[in-house]
């Protein structure tokens, strides 16, 4: 186990996942993520394209914030324990938004012979607007 993973025997309903606050979204982050993720959709990196598509400016990839949620989950528990990870993209993340990822265990369930913590997770802007809302299933 990595040093950052907490002991799993203390996990139960109400356990909070240590939150993750990200630096403000900027154009460099979007350019790097476009290259690294393979999502070359110009709407995230080319302001001319974004404006033609009716958007005020480029905006963040939804998958960037989902990757941030993934960081939060795997900083909490080893990825080897992650069984399912899903979310809806509820609002667009704009440049300069400060995203915070958070989550908590809402139910303990038995599935395929394992005890699983069902966690509600979200990414939100500083004003509280939820951008991603979803859930993760983590074996304990």
């Amino acid at each position: 186990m990595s040093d950052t993973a907490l002991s799993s025997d203390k996990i139960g309903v109400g356990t909070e996942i240590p939150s993750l606050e990200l630096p403000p979204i900027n154009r460099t982050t979007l350019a790097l993520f476009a290259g690294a993720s393979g999502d070359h959709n110009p709407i995230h990196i080319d302001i001319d394209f974004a404006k033609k598509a009716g958007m005020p400016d480029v905006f963040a990839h939804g998958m960037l914030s989902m990757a941030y949620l993934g960081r939060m989950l795997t900083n909490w528990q080893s990825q080897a324990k992650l069984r399912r990870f899903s979310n809806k993209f509820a609002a667009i993340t704009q440049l300069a938004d400060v995203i915070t990822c958070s989550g908590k265990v809402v139910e303990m369930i038995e599935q395929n012979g394992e005890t699983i913590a069902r966690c509600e997770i979200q990414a939100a802007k500083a004003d509280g607007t939820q951008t991603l809302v979803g859930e993760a299933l983590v074996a304990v």
Partner: protein
Amino acid sequence: MLDRSKIGHEFPSFSVDIEKGRLKFFAKAIGETNPVYTDEEAARAAGFKALPAPPTFMMSVDLDAPEFLPMLSLLEMDLGRVLHGAQDFEYIGQIYAGDTITQTSKILDMFDKKGGALEFIVLESAYTNQDGELVGKAQQTIVYRN
């Protein structure tokens, strides 16, 4: 209205080499600080046989298809009107640096809301490694602004 007769369409399968450098670049791009994703010794100490691909990297396998977002041409869609509505990953195994992952995907469903102002396409994908082991599945919901 997008062509609903394409529900059930299977896209050509393809394979992608999972490169160590690409995983490190991905880790850098998302500001990852956990050494498990950038340092092979840390990865092995944590019980991984090589650098693990992070949880959302399955989507990057999709994006490395020979044709970028092949649904665009199939359904005659305009890229500028595409939004990501939802994403669901199921983990059965683990994708590692050095793996060759074969992806298969199909259109699971299509529907609309708001009187057709928004159309939804649900894609289902599966990921198998070089040993024939199914390592993950995904469902992606795409929103199309009409």
